[in-house]
Every structure is written in C-alpha cells, then in structure tokens.
C-alpha cells in the first residue's frame, strides 16, 4: 500500500538520531566496556576504562558529545518502494544533520574543499547511501564517524587463491600499525567481497551490528572470533597503555564478488562508536 510522509519527518528523525548517537553511548558498547573493565588485570588499563565509562555517564547527563570529534555525518537510507516522501529527501537529511550539530553543540568538522580546507560551519554536507527495498517504510541509520579511527582504515585486493590466514594477518597487522591512534578498545568493521568500493561500504556498515551478535554464516562467525583473538593478543590495550582488551568486537559483512578478486576492507571504529537507527 502506498504511504506518503512529509520530508519534515525525515529531517526531525535524522536530527534526533544524530543527537542520540553523539551524546548517548550505544548500550552494547557500554556493557562491553563494563565487562572489559571487570576482566582487566592491569591497573593502568583499568584506570583508563573507568574514565571512559565515566565519560559516557557525564555525556549522557549533560547532553555533551561523548567525543569532541562529532564526526562526518554518514546516513544510510533503506527506502521502501511504496513510500512517497513529499519534498526533497536529500535536503531533509542535510537539514536534520545541520540542526543536530547546531542544537547539540557539536563540533563542525567538515571542510568544503579537501585541498583548500575551509570549514563549512554546518558540518554539511553529509554522506548519504540509499537502497530501495520492498514495503512502505524507511529505515534510517546514522553514523557520526570520527576521523582518528577513520584514518586507520585499510583496503587490500587479495588474490582469490590467498589463504584465509593472509586475510587474518592483514587485519591484525593493520590494527597493530594503527596502535593507540584509533582510540582502542576498538570495534573492527570488515567488508569482504564485492568491488573495492562495496567492500569499503560494507566495512563501515558492519559496525552497526550490536556487539555480541555474530555473522549468520558459520565460517564468517569463526573468522570474526579468530581475528578478535589475534587482535586482543596484541595487548595494545585501552588508549594504548597495554591490557587485555584491544578490540571489543569484530563484525564482518560479505558480498558476492568476481572470480578474479577478493577485496577486503577494514574500518576501525573507536570505543566511542556513535551510531543510531530507527524505522519509520
């Protein structure tokens, strides 16, 4: 059945999602940090984790951003083909972002030209991905992606015949090389398959999956577990002070690919992973 909504509803939803994402740490991340604190044996790492956990409480109470890098706004829209949005959808999303960053007292971190580098002072434009699905609803997912960890992203085009251990090593080496820069304990998003750009997009979308859940394919779930173990054996620890926890989780998304290729992308997300989603 065809359903019509006003683009204002999209604008207000996007605004609310970005405010929530930036000020209220995801419950799965917070529980995982608390568990990590409980299991931490290093006094220094425990001290750091205590501050990180307290930070989440202060941010929520005072409506302050969890991290001053309130990120570049990335928005994923799954639009039902029977939904009609009155007005401009793109404009509504961008207005929602601008409103959230203004009302939330979030930092404007976007420069208009990547080489001239003048701040747009609105945190716009956002990056919008759309997908058409069945039905008459719209699913909106937002990520406020900070660049400390974004800069630690990596991609490699493997040979289709390369052993899985090579991929595991590539991921662990990338985390090792990034060290304390992406604000560990991190959440590691991995995209495997598709094309270069598809693998990268998957690696970012992977961090929306709540911690504790695994990929539904058994061989991929096994890979996630194995990589997590390897990464935590690096003992980089919270903010790099050493300790039992370097990553809170590994989330892999896959897509069919070409007979000649095996793209692998890594998107590291910090302990202040900020995402939110809803369906309207």
């Amino acid at each position, binding site marked *: 059945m065809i359903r019509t909504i006003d683009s204002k509803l999209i604008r207000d939803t996007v605004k609310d999602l970005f405010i929530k994402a930036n000020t209220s740490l995801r419950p799965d991340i917070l529980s995982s940090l608390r568990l990590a604190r409980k299991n931490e044996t290093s006094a220094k790492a425990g001290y750091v984790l205590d*501050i990180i956990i307290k930070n989440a409480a202060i941010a929520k109470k005072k409506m302050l951003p969890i991290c001053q890098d309130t990120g570049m706004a990335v928005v994923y829209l799954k639009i039902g083909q029977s939904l009609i949005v009155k007005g401009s959808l793109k404009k509504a999303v961008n207005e929602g972002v601008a409103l959230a960053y203004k009302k939330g007292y*979030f930092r404007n971190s976007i420069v208009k030209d990547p080489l001239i580098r003048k701040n747009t002072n609105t945190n716009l434009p956002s990056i919008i991905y759309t997908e058409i699905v069945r039905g008459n609803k719209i699913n909106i997912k937002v990520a406020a992606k900070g660049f400390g960890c974004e800069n630690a992203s990596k991609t490699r085009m493997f040979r289709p015949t390369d052993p899985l251990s090579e991929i595991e090593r590539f991921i662990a080496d990338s985390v090792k090389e990034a060290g304390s820069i992406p604000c560990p304990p991190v959440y590691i998003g991995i995209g495997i398959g598709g094309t270069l750009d598809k693998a990268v997009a998957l690696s970012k979308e992977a961090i929306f999956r709540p911690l504790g859940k695994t990929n539904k394919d058994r061989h991929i779930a096994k890979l996630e577990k194995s990589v997590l173990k390897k990464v935590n054996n690096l003992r980089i620890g919270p903010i790099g002070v050493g300790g039992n926890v370097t990553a809170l989780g590994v989330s892999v998304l896959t897509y069919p690919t070409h007979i000649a290729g095996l793209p692998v992308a890594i998107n590291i997300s910090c302990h202040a992973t900020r995402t939110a989603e809803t369906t309207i």
Partner: protein
Amino acid sequence: MRKIFLPLVRNVIKTLKPGEMVLLSGPLLTARDAAHKRLADSLKSGRKIPILLKGETIYYTGPAPKRIGEVIGSCGPTTSSRMDPFTPLLLKHGLIGMIGKGERSKEVILAIKKYKAVYFITIGGAGAYLSERVKSAKVIAYKDLGPEAIYRLTVQDFPAIVEAL
C-alpha cells in the same frame, strides 16, 4: 598519583618517568592541524607568531562548542602524529610540553630528547570527562580557524600519562 603544575619546568620534567600517570594543573595552549601549519609557516618565513612558545605546553584538541553556563565543550585529544612534521620546529622555539594521543615519529622522539621536553598522552574519546577538568578557556589566536583556533586553557587535575621524554 603525582600532581604536576604548569607551566612545566625542566627540573620537574627530568623527574618524570615513562608510563607515569600524573594530574596536570595550570595554563596551557591548544593547537591542532591548521594552527600548527600556520605557526610553522610564519616561523619558517621569519614572521611574528601571535603566541610565545617558550616554556609552553600545547594540548592537541579542537573543542566542541560550549553550552551556555559551561566553560568549554567536550575536549579530548586528537591524534598527535599529524603534528609531527611541525613539532621539532616548535620545540626549537621553546615549546616544552605536549598532550595528545598516539605514538610519535622517530624524529619527534629525538627532538623531545634534544630539547628536554615531554609528551603526555591523555584519554582519547573521553572529551566530556576531560571538559570537567578545564577551569577556563579563551580563544587567543587564529579565531578564524573556528574549532582549530588557539585557546588558552587552565586545567585542574587533568589526567595524563608520560609517553616520551
């Protein structure tokens, strides 16, 4: 935990130990990418810079805007290695302390030793917590850079870990 007062002095720096957890109190400056580039460009071409670097500590942060009634918005550290190309020059001009997150380049580590300076790390991603340790904040230079402007902050019991000296 040892309390260290700012501005830093070399007699205190030499008593610090790598990995030591401290609480910093006193005045410091903030500067990140754009401010570093501007400072370095001016110093290289012999132009005057709007701050005195001698004996200063720079905190690598770009704070979020403050809410009414607050001193500052969230203000955690940004990645220090992005300042690496400019750091030896700033040390040469008198900078003796830095606060940020992450590892530094070999050249920066050598320059820190040469100038008997210190590099602390603080807790990345804890900007709301750290904002409560800032007692005053004022933009003092490069206002046009917005969140990348140079602020004078006064901090109290600001948590830091000695990373290099």
